[in-house]
């Protein structure tokens, strides 16, 4: 039985490789079985879809930054200073651009998880919302952990920035 399985798998491999039609992309890695938990009698389709999509997009362990119950030092928190490097396009060797700002909000929505960075660029407030699992986002790096923030959403920084955007880190790279 095992031999048969191995044989069929071996036979199947080159078939898949030869299955390269111009109109189709085969996402990598392919999961032979849906990523369902052993507890689930019938796999919850939407949860399986989300799990698989995140495990594919989680190339550099970035999903650890968005675990809700992790210790604050291990995850991204509102108030942290974050640098995000994005590709300008999906073409190979495309230029990248980076943005540094204070994270003022995190939206945990599975594969559509996003966060908002805010900074002052030439005294003008600039906010950018990044989708965490977008293939265009090359790197997410926490440059400085925020201190003294007690809220999940820091929208009050728009009206009362205080000294939030006075950090040297923000001034240097916030261009």
């Amino acid at each position, binding site marked *: 039985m095992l031999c048969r399985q191995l044989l069929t798998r071996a036979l199947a491999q080159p078939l898949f490789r030869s299955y390269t039609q111009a109109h189709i992309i085969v996402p990598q890695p392919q999961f032979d079985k849906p990523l369902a938990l052993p507890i689930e009698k019938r796999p919850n*389709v939407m949860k399986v879809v989300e799990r698989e999509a995140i495990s594919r997009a989680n190339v550099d362990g970035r999903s650890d930054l968005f675990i809700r119950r992790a210790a604050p030092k291990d995850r991204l928190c509102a108030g942290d200073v974050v640098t995000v490097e994005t590709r300008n396009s999906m073409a190979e060797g495309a230029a990248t651009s980076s943005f540094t700002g204070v994270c003022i909000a995190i939206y945990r929505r599975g*594969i559509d998880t996003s966060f908002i960075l805010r900074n002052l660029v030439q005294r003008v407030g600039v906010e950018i919302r990044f*989708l965490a699992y*977008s293939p265009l986002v090359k790197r997410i790096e926490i440059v400085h952990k925020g201190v003294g923030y007690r809220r999940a959403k820091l929208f009050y920084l728009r009206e009362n920035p205080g000294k939030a955007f006075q950090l040297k880190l923000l001034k240097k790279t916030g261009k």
Partner: protein
Amino acid sequence: MFTRAFLASRLTAKSAVVQNAAPRSLFSTSAVTQKAKLPHEKLRYAPEVSELKLGDYTAQSQRTGVIARKKGMTGMWDEWGVRVPVTVLQLEKVQVVSIIKTSNPSCARLQIGCGVRKEKNTSKPLKGHYDAHGVEPKAKVFEFPVTPDAALPVGTEITAAHFVPGQLVDVTAPSLGKGFQGVMKRWGFSGGRASHGNSLAHRTPGSTGNINPGRVYPGKKMPGRMGGKNVTVIRLPVMKVDTALNCIWVKGPVPGHDEQFIKVRDSTKLIKHRLFPEGAAVPFPTYIPGQSPALPRETIAKVGGQDPLVPSSD
């Protein structure tokens, strides 16, 4: 008292006469009809599932549609890095229940069933119908017209591989019920003014007609129940096909709530559009395991065209 055999013989004789008179249907059921002894056996479509063979798709062919279940919405990224909102539709035990001939010999409808219905919840007439065709009771049944070359034997299972990534589909389902709504929401009327002496007439329909003819015309747009009616969304691209979960990802929203039964069929109104992407191998009349080429578990459609994130040189 008529015996059962006598009745059956009379019925077969009658049908033979009718067949001679009317043009012969292109959907052959002859093999079983001759053997049939009970009246209900005549309903069976002759070829067995094992006799199903791949055919050649032509522009005139119309494949069967399927009943799928809406599972929910999510997002994915195409090859250019652009996010695409998608709806996940699952094909739960989709099977051909019966074939229904029409007066037109070159047109018939395939009755497609989806899901599982408990036997105790199936009415006896329906139970008899399912038993006659040797199919387990289905949660939902619907008919789709097909051309003779796309006919499928009763019992054929239709899987997600029936669809090709990049092809276009039409999707039909009852929309979300909105309840009793006024004319502004239901029909898009402008309503009244917000100020300038307006009194209690901000959202009213206003006049419903002239003094002549002194009545309201039938079909006048008025307040009433909104939603909960069949809505068809046309030309939705299939973004992804998952053969293990038996799901298709369709671009954009689809009418109805989650777990809603959705009718999905090949797109029909194709002005300046291709039904299938160029160079695609069409599973015709459907994907047949063993005969059709083996597929990877998941395949994603290539959007193609120009990179939208790179400004064009001209």
